[in-house]
C-alpha cells in the first residue's frame, strides 16, 4: 500500500525563481524566506517521497479564459514548463504518474466532483518553484507528479468548503491506491497578497496566522469563510490559499504541524512555508 508521508506547503512567488537564479538566498531581503527551507529538505530526505500530488493554480500558461476549468487534473506522462511571458529560463520538466492520476480522477467523479482531465498540461512556476525550493541541487526531480489545478483566476471560484472536500476525495483515492509509493501532498500559493487594484500591496498577517494555526488541527475552520471573505481578508491573490486547503484535505483526517516559517514581504506577498505529518 502507498503511504502518504505528509504535506508540504509554500508560497510560489515568481520572484523566488529569480532570487534562486541570482544566488540571492542569503541576502538580507531573501534570507528570512529561504531560511524556512533547510527543515523542509531534511524532512524530505527523511521521508523520501516518490510521488508529489500538487494542488496549485495556473497563472495563464496552460489555461485561458476560452476554456477555464474549476478543477483540472493532469494525467500526462510528462509535464513541461514553458515561457510564461517573461522569457525566463525554463524549469525542469516533471515526470507524471498517469495511472495514479486516473485513479484519482475515478475517485473524484465517483464522489461527484466534475474535473477536467488533462492528458497534456504545461506547469508553471506555481509547481516548479516549490520543487526548486525542496530539491535545489538535483538534475532530475525525485518525484513523479499528479498535478491538480484549482481556479483562482476567474470568479466564481470554488468555495473553501468545496476545495477541502476535493482534497478529501483525493485522500480517499490515495488511500486506496495499490502501489507501494511514498506520496507527499503539496499545496502552493498565497498567503495574503493583492497585486491588482488600489489595494495592491495589501497583506494581512492576522488572516495568515489564522490559516496557519488551523490548517493542521481544524481545517474546517477555514471553510466557514466564503471566497468573498477570503478576498477581503487575504487579498485578490490571497485566494490561492484554496490550494493549501485542498492539499490539507488530501493529507487525511488528522495532521500535526512539524515546521512553519512566515515572512513578509516577498515581492508583494506574505510568504509562508509549512510541513504537516499525518496524525
Amino acid at each position, binding site marked *: 500500500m502507498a503511504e502518504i508521508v505528509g504535506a508540504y506547503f509554500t508560497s510560489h512567488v515568481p520572484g523566488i525563481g529569480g532570487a534562486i537564479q541570482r544566488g540571492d538566498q542569503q541576502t538580507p531581503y531573501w534570507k528570512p524566506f529561504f531560511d524556512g527551507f533547510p527543515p523542509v529538505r531534511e524532512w524530505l530526505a527523511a521521508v523520501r517521497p516518490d510521488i508529489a500530488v500538487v494542488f496549485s493554480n495556473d497563472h495563464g500558461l496552460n489555461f485561458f479564459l*476560452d476554456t477555464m476549468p474549476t478543477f483540472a487534473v493532469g494525467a500526462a506522462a510528462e509535464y513541461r514548463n514553458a515561457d510564461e*511571458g517573461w522569457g525566463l529560463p525554463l524549469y525542469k520538466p516533471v515526470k507524471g504518474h498517469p495511472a495514479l492520476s486516473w485513479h484519482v480522477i475515478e475517485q473524484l467523479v465517483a464522489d461527484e466532483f466534475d474535473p477536467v482531465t488533462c492528458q497534456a498540461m504545461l506547469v508553471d512556476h506555481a509547481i516548479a518553484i516549490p520543487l526548486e525550493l525542496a530539491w535545489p541541487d538535483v538534475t532530475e526531480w525525485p518525484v513523479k507528479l499528479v498535478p491538480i489545478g484549482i481556479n483562482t483566476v*476567474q470568479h466564481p471560484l470554488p468555495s473553501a468548503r468545496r476545495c477541502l472536500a476535493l482534497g478529501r476525495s483525493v485522500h480517499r483515492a490515495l488511500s486506496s491506491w495499490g502501489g507501494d509509493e511514498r506520496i507527499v501532498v503539496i499545496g502552493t500559493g498565497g498567503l495574503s497578497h493583492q497585486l*491588482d487594484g488600489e489595494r*495592491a500591496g*495589501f497583506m494581512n498577517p492576522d488572516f495568515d*496566522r489564522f490559516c496557519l494555526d488551523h490548517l493542521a488541527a481544524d481545517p474546517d475552520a477555514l471553510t466557514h469563510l*466564503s471566497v468573498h471573505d477570503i478576498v477581503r481578508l487575504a487579498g*485578490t491573490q490571497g485566494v490561492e490559499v484554496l490550494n493549501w486547503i485542498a492539499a490539507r484535505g488530501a493529507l487525511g483526517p488528522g495532521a500535526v504541524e512539524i515546521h512553519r516559517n512566515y515572512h513578509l514581504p516577498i515581492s508583494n506577498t506574505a510568504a509562508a512555508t509549512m510541513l504537516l505529518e499525518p496524525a
Partner: protein
Amino acid sequence: MPHPASPTETPRAIPGTTLFDGDAAQKGYQLNAMCFSFNSAANRAAFAADEEAYCTRFALTADQRRAVATRDVPGMIAAGGNIYYLAKLAGILGLSVQDVGALQTGLSVDAFKAMLLAQGRGQSYEQSIAEARHG
C-alpha cells in the same frame, strides 16, 4: 481573527478591489487574449515592433487600446484586464510587480516598496498605506 461571514451572504464591496468575475471576463476578453499570446517570444516581439497593429489584431476595445497605449494599469483593470494575464504585458513594458503596484496606488515606486516593508515590520496595511500617502 475577524468574524467570517456566511458563505451564502451577499458580498459587500471590498475597497480598492475589483473581482475578476464573469462581467470582467467578458469585458476583458480581447485584452486578456492579447496578454495570453505574450507567452510566445515571437508575439512579444511583434507587439514591440508594431503595438498598434498587434492591438488591432486582437480587436482590443477603444478603452483597452487607450489603457495599453498610455500604460494605464488601473485603466487596463477597469477594461477587464486580469492581473495574471496583464503581468505578461507588464514584463514587456519593463514594469515589475512593484511598479504595477505603484501605478495602481498612485504612490511612487519607492513609497510603494516602503509600504510593503512597513508591513514586514509588523505595521498594519492601513497604517502603512496611510503613511505612504501622507508621509
